[in-house]
Structures are given as C-alpha cells and as structure tokens.
C-alpha cells in the first residue's frame, strides 16, 4: 500500500471528524444543561432534601403532671413501662433464642416472636421495632444482666439488636375510685393528629379523654422536648456528628391538687356498695369545694390507659348500668321531692303562703279534672309546711303550686342554679331542665295547670344533675351563697412550688330571708330527726345532726319491650331514690346528694347511704355545739374549718 493512497484514505475520514466533534459537544452540552438544572435551579430543593436526609428529630416526652387529692394522696401518676425494641437487621445468630430464654417465653411465645420477626418487611429491618410492651421486673433484670450476650462487634462498633426503653405510662393508684371525675388518657387517633399537630402532639401521644385528665390536659401534659441527631442512610445514628445536635429540653407538666378527698371517696364507695347504679356528690358548703363526686358503676382507669380491647369496650358500653356515663354531671334526672324546698321558697318569699296554714291531704289532689296522687295513698290528714316537708306530702305542694304558679317556682329553682350548667369544668355537663310557661308556649304545648303541680314536686319535665342539686343544697345550708363547684384547688410545679391557689368562686347570692331559711332547715332537720320524718327510721341517734330531704322520683313508665325481660323492666321502672341534705345542722360544713338510680324509696334507700357517709366523714371530729348559746356564730371557733387541708 503506497503512502500516498494512505493519506488520501485518511482524508476521506476527515470530513466526518467535525460532525463527530459536533455530536460530542451537543451531547455534553445536554449533560451540562442537566447539571445546571440540578445544581443551579433546583439546588435549594435538593439541599433541603439532603439536610432532611441526615437529620432525625427524636421527641423527648414530657413527664405528665401528677394529680393529688386534697390531702396530697396521689390520684394519677406515671410509672415507667419497659418496652423491648428489636432491630431485625442487627439480629445475630442465636439472639432470638437468647432473648426468648431471658424473657422466659414459652413455646407459644417463641413461635409468635419468630412469626412477628418474619413479618417485618425488608425495608424496615433497620428500624427499631417495639416487640414487647411493659415487661415484668424479672424480665427486665434478666435482659439487663445478660446484655453482653446480646451485644456483638461489627466492624469497629458494638451493636445490639435488643434495646429496652423505658417510657412513662399513666397509672391510677385508686384504680376505679372516682374514675369519671379523674378521667383517663388514651392514644391519639390518626384523624385527630392533623388537627393537634400544631399544638405539639405527635403520633403515639396520649391525650386526656375525660374528667380532670381532659379538662386540665394543657397544664398536665407539659411541653415535649426534642433532640436532633444526625443519621446515616440506614437510619443508624451517624458517628460523624461533629455538629452539636440541638436539644430542646422537655418541660414537665404541672401538678394539680384537687379538692376531692379520696378518704371520703372511699367512705362513699363503701356506703354505696349495695347499689349498682347511682351518683353521690359531697361539697363544702362554705367554699363550693367538691369533696366527693362519684358515679356508679365505675371502671378501672389503668385499663383504659393501657387500651381496651374491642370486646372489653363493648362490654362497658352495653352494660345496662351505663358505667361509661358520668351520672353526677353528664346525666340529668327527675329530682322528685328533693325539689320541694325550692317550691316552698317560691311561696314563702313572695308571701303567698303562710307556712303555718294547714292543707288537708286525703291521698290525692283534684285539679283540672284529674287526680294528682300523694306519696301516701291514705293521705297525711291536715299538714302545715313543716309537716308536709317532713312527710313529703305531695298534696300540700300541689295546692302550693296552684297558688304560686309555675314561673315563680322555676325562677327560684334557677336562682339556685337548677336547670343551668354549674361550670364545674370537667366532662360534658348537662344543663338539666326547669320548665317555664314561656317554654311550653314556645314549644306549642297546650298549657295545663298540671304542669305547675308536677314541677312543684320535682316531676313533670323537671330534670337536674347531681352536682346542680349539691350546689343548690349547699346554698340552702350556707345562707344563700351559690358557689361554682370547685374541683381543682392548687396548681404547682413538679418541685412542689405552688404556682396558683384557686379561690372559691361565688356564682350568685340568692335572696332568701333568714327566717325562711331557718324554717326550712328546721323542716329538713325534722325529716331526719322528727319521728314523722321520712328518714327518721334510718337516722343514727347521737351522731352528727343531719338535715335533709328525701326524694322518690317516679320515672315515666316505659313501654315494656318484648325482648326485655321482666326483671330488667321492673328495675327500669323503679323510682330514683334521692337524699339531699347537709350536716352538721347548726353549722353546716358539707352538703350531700345521694341518688340511687332506680333505687326505689329515697327515705328507705338513699337516706341511709347519705347518713352513713356523713356520719363516717364528720362523726370522728364532731363536737356538739353547746345548747345554751343562742346565736353564737361570731365567737365560736371554726374548729373544723381546716379540714381537708
């Protein structure tokens, strides 16, 4: 091949080099444009992704505040739950076996562990996954003692697939006592999270659902802290964390002291033992402080906080005694005869009734072509107001209602806070209902005089809550001061420093003349202490002098459902048994309401419960007031004022 021809042939290629160079330049031009797009236009986006890639924020949970009663007894506190986390990717040969042995798992437990491990998807193998919750002390001790058996050397670091993490869980030492008022926590649902995230809640957080736990959630929960750490792609904590990770310390929640007296609560629970369903309230008449608030039946708070199974919850929900309902606040009941004092005041204050005037009771009252029955078929004969109160004569109050009228009665009842929310601030409060003539008009219900008669004896459309009635009787006992029921008395820091003492709050001063009140209190005293009184039979002689009023509230006859068995229907149609009162008579300290749902006669069933409670609560420290001093309030030392502090 000649040199000349070779040069020519190379020259034949030459035309194409330029096209090749152009093609190379264009292709690399495209690459440069791509780089500009990534590195110049989108650099902020990718920079952010890269930063988020390597940082993880670990929430540092805040300790929830402790709830105490008025004596400092712990009602709600926190204990550590030891949870076992496994990182499947780090499990070495034999680890599962070692762990099973340390945990003391039986064959079934081992199989379940193996199955759950196998079920973890590949992409989560580097995650710490919770496998056991709240292990026992023995299991914890075993794992901690033998932790070296579960640690392996990988490269230059020590790794373990098994970690035990302590997380605080809420616990309630009094178990089921006062559950409705205290309340429980449970885990946030996914749909709530979106709404609550701005307030600092995170997935897995628990939130107060009822009672104090819910109402005081914001103070109790504190503020979660956080720690930002650097991580590698496998989400293991990075070893090259040269930047100081930011730590925001958690702020523990506030401690709360309640006005509740758990010793009294125990007394109440004991006194109510024979009755499946009902509610009791005991309030300090001098401050409105709630000393006891109980709804029966109750439930274990720890069980709720741990999380109920579907079946457990269904059992509670379908229980005919309605354990999930707070009967002291949420539900309203016919008050029956415990309402009569307010009808009496309506007559007395407007001077429409002379309390000494007698009314003849033949066992029923004819009005508007209907017979309104008395509580005693045979009638009480001629009774004045005191006797009518003591014996709970309906006929007397029918006649009173006819003269006084519905609206006067309703106004007095409302002045005493009946038919209105008390503002106790926990749980959902029912307003109850006190009917007025304008209400019937507004609802196009043809007015009948009988409405007033029924209302006067606490029937008809009248409904009140236990806490309302307690505050109203406290007002009767203290001379007419209607308080807002107070359930929280102090807020303090975890170290015990008092942050705020909450003061009693007066809702209203109800105007009732001294003599009328004195007359009523004398009548109430007669209910318990006069042989004619409805509670005389169950009084405790020589105990704390108690004044009160019994009530037997008829419930409307329900149509008997065919599938409902007779016993249940019989129960449901039984009257509510009430006792409302206060003690000691001459210088009242506490007012009490006992309501036994479908309990029957108030005098026979509710009164002994109330009397037992008051006796046990006040009896040990009660000293009778000297008889000879007439009105010695001013110089008598309030020996028991400090009770409960």
């Amino acid at each position: 091949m000649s040199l000349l021809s070779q040069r020519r042939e190379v020259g034949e290629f030459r035309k194409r080099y330029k096209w090749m160079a152009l093609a190379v330049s264009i292709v690399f031009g495209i690459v440069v444009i791509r780089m500009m797009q990534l590195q110049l236009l989108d650099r902020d986006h990718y920079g952010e992704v890269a930063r988020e890639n390597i940082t993880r924020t670990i929430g540092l949970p805040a300790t929830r505040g402790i709830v105490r009663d008025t004596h400092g007894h712990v009602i709600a506190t926190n204990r550590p739950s030891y949870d076992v986390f496994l990182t499947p990717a780090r499990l070495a040969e034999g680890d599962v076996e070692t762990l099973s042995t340390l945990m003391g798992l039986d064959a079934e437990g081992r199989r379940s562990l193996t199955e759950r491990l196998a079920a973890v998807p590949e992409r989560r193998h580097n995650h710490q996954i919770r496998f056991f919750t709240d292990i026992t002390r023995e299991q914890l001790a075993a794992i901690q003692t033998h932790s070296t058996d579960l640690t392996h050397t990988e490269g230059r670091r020590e790794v373990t697939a098994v970690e035990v993490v302590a997380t605080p869980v809420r616990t309630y030492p009094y178990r089921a006592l006062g559950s409705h008022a205290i309340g429980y926590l449970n885990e946030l649902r996914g749909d709530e999270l979106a709404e609550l995230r701005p307030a600092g809640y995170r997935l897995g957080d628990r939130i107060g659902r009822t009672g104090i736990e819910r109402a005081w959630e914001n103070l109790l929960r504190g503020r979660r802290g956080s720690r930002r750490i650097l991580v590698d792609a496998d989400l293991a904590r990075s070893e090259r964390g040269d930047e100081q990770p930011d730590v925001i310390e958690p702020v523990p929640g506030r401690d709360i002291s309640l006005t509740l007296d758990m010793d009294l609560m125990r007394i109440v629970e004991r006194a109510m033992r024979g009755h499946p369903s009902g509610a009791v309230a005991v309030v300090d008449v001098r401050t409105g402080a709630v000393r006891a608030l109980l709804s029966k039946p109750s439930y274990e708070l720890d069980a709720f906080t741990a999380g109920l199974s579907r079946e457990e919850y269904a059992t509670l929900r379908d229980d005919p005694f309605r354990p999930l309902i707070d009967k002291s606040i949420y539900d309203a009941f016919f008050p029956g005869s415990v309402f009569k004092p307010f009808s009496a005041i309506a007559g007395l204050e407007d001077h429409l009734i002379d309390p000494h005037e007698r009314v003849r009771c033949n066992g029923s009252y004819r009005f508007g072509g209907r017979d309104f029955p008395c509580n005693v078929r045979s009638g009480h004969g001629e009774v004045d107001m005191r006797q009518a109160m003591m014996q709970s004569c309906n006929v007397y109050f029918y006649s009173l209602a006819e003269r006084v009228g519905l609206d006067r009665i309703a106004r007095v009842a409302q002045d005493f806070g009946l038919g209105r929310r008390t503002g106790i601030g926990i749980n959902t409060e029912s307003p109850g209902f006190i009917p007025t003539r304008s209400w019937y008009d507004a609802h196009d219900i043809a007015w009948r005089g009988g409405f007033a008669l029924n209302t006067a004896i606490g029937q008809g459309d009248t409904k009140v809550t236990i806490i309302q009635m307690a505050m109203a009787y406290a007002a009767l006992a203290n001379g007419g001061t209607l308080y807002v029921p107070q359930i929280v008395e102090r807020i303090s820091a975890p170290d015990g420093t008092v942050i705020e003492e909450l003061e009693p709050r007066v809702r209203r001063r109800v105007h009732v003349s001294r003599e009328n009140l004195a007359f009523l209190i004398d009548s109430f005293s007669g209910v318990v202490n006069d042989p004619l009184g409805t509670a005389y039979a169950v009084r405790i002689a020589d105990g704390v002098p108690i004044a009160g009023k019994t009530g037997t509230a008829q419930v409307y006859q329900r149509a008997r459902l065919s599938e409902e068995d007779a016993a249940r229907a019989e129960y449901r149609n039984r009257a509510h048994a009430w006792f409302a009162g206060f003690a000691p008579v001459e210088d009242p300290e506490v007012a009490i309401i006992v309501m036994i749902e479908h309990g029957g006669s108030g005098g026979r069933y509710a009164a002994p419960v109330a009397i037992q409670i008051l006796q046990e609560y006040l009896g040990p420290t009660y000293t009778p007031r000297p008889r000879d001093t007439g009105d010695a309030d001013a110089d008598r030392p309030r020996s028991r004022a400090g009770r409960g502090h």
Partner: protein
Amino acid sequence: MVTIGKGLRDQFDWPLFVTVASIAVIGVTNLYSATSANPDELGQLYIQQIYWLTIGAGVAVLVAAIDYRHYERFAWFAYGAGIVLLLLVFLLAPEVRGSQRWIYIGGFSLQPSELAKPILIVALAKHLHNDPKTEGRTLQDLVVPALILIGPMSLILLQPDLGTALLCAFIFASIMVLTNLKKRSLFTLVMAFVLAAPIIYVVGLERYQRGRIDTWWSMVIGEEIDVSGDAWQVYQSMVAIGSGGTWGKGFMQGTQNQHRFVPDTHSDFPIAVWAEEQGFVGMLLLLGLYVFLILWSLRIASTAKDRFGAVTAVGVAAFFFWHSVINIGMVCALLPVVGVTLPLFSYGGSSVLTSMICVGLLMNVSIRRFSY
C-alpha cells in the same frame, strides 16, 4: 521501534498526558472521599486505585512505545487471544450475583470483557485498514466487521454483561459511522434497531433491568416515584448532585456521601460525590476534561498518518465518549441505570487497565503521526 529516542520525546503528546493525569488524580482524590464513608469495607480502595493507575501507566507506556504498525500486524492474533480469554471466563470465573465476569490470576482479578474493548477497536482498525474503500458501503460490506463485533459481544452477552456488550456495539457503530455508509443501508440499520428495541426490552432483559428502565422513564416523564424502592439510588444521586449547588459542599463534606445515602460511590456513582462536594464548577471542570479528551482523540485521529491509526483513535474516542456519557447520564437520571464505569475515575483494576491501554494507543497514534 524505530522512532524511540529523541524524536519520540519531541512528539510526546503533552495535552493528552495532562488531561489523563488530571482525571486520574481527581479520580483518586474523589475516591478517597467516597470510600471514607465506609472505612471498614472500602477504606483502602484509593491506595489500590493508585497501584492500578501505576501499573496502568506502565502498560500505557509499553503500548505507546511499540509502533502501532506492529499491532496492525498482530491484530488478528490479539483478537484471537481476546476470544480465548472470554471463553476462559466460562471455565474459570466463579458466579457472582448471577453472572461470570472475573477470572482470578494470582492475586489479581481480571475482567476479560473490559479488555475486549481495545481488542475490538484494534481488530476493526485492522479490517478497515485493509479495506480502503472510499465509495459508499452497502450492508454487505458490513458483514465482516459485524462478525468481528459479534464474536466477543456474543460471549459477553452470555456472561451476561449487557452493559459491556452494549458498549462494544456503540463503539462498533461509532467506528462504522466514520466510513461512508450508503444512506439506504444506514436507514435499514436504524429501522432494524428501532424494531428490535421493544423485542429486546421484553425478551432480552431481566426483570430488574426492565425495572430500571421503567423507573427511569417515570422520572423522565415526571411521574411520582417511590424513592424508597427502585429509584432510591438514582434519586439520592440526584439529591447529592443538586445539593452540591454552585460551589459544592467541600472535599469530604458531602453529606449524601458521608452519610451513605448514595450506594456504589466508588464504582458506578463516583460522579455524584464529585458533584456534591465540588458543585457545578467542579462538574464543569471534569466534564471539560472528558470533552477535551474525546475531542483531542478525534484530533489525533484526523492527523493520523494511516487508516489503522485513525480508526484506532476514533475507536478510543468512542470508548471514552460512550463510557463517560452513559455513566454521567445514569447518575443524573438522563439515562436508565446500567453498570457502566467512568473511565479513569471509577475504582476498578480492569477498568483502569483498559482505559490506560486506550490512552497508550492514542499516544502511540499521536506520537507517530509524522513518522513515515
């Protein structure tokens, strides 16, 4: 061997040397950073890379020193040796992740499919050298070169190593573009490829390979992709590149790299580390070096004194071009992920040796452009 001595020193191709040396030095530095994220397993790789580069430099000097006309003479012999090596793979190579690629000789592992590339280039150069036809070529004229390609390529496909086989095909195509192919023949070839592509996609590809292409296509058309799945590597690579910004995060400061978000930074994705730590400016520098290397190769081809030298230089240009474009393209999601290394930059003994042989060939053609 005639021109070794004073003449050769005068003709030494400094621009080529400086470009290659720059890429290699940058590559080792980058490798140091890339492997520092995983010191337990990869900590010493940059030192091994230096060894390979040193050996490679020796091989390059050797390849450059022997007048390439001797290669022309022994081209078929080299081609035969290459085929034998590729056959040996099936006898000696253990199966790694479903394919047989490496044969172990002493302490070294060798990837014959890598060496097949320069051998293919030389063989094609030999064929075209002996077939100095200037008029338009028909498909019939392509039969012999096609057979030259199909020999090693079919063996590589059997390993299987689709990426390398594809590269061989691209290098072959690039060289054939140099010749005066008839328009009709060219059209037929393009149509055949267009028709074959979907069939290859369905029949010829493994599931994971189709997955990579599908992921890439989703990214191209802007669909939402699950970045924790198939797209993880490419997505994190893009994050690394993008977060580098204009000036980069600094040497050893790339968080995507240091916190191990980009897998395979030493082999297939070193460019992600470079882009993250040196930014757009660093990328311009590196891309500039590769463009210069390729254009310089074409220049060497254009000044080569004979067909053999010209075709060899163009083949080497094609080798660098396709390797760098496919690698960089896949790292920034312009192309689907194929296991193609960045020559002189990625870690790998065979890859370094092959690149260095190619550099040696270039140097050889360049030095001898004026010698007759």
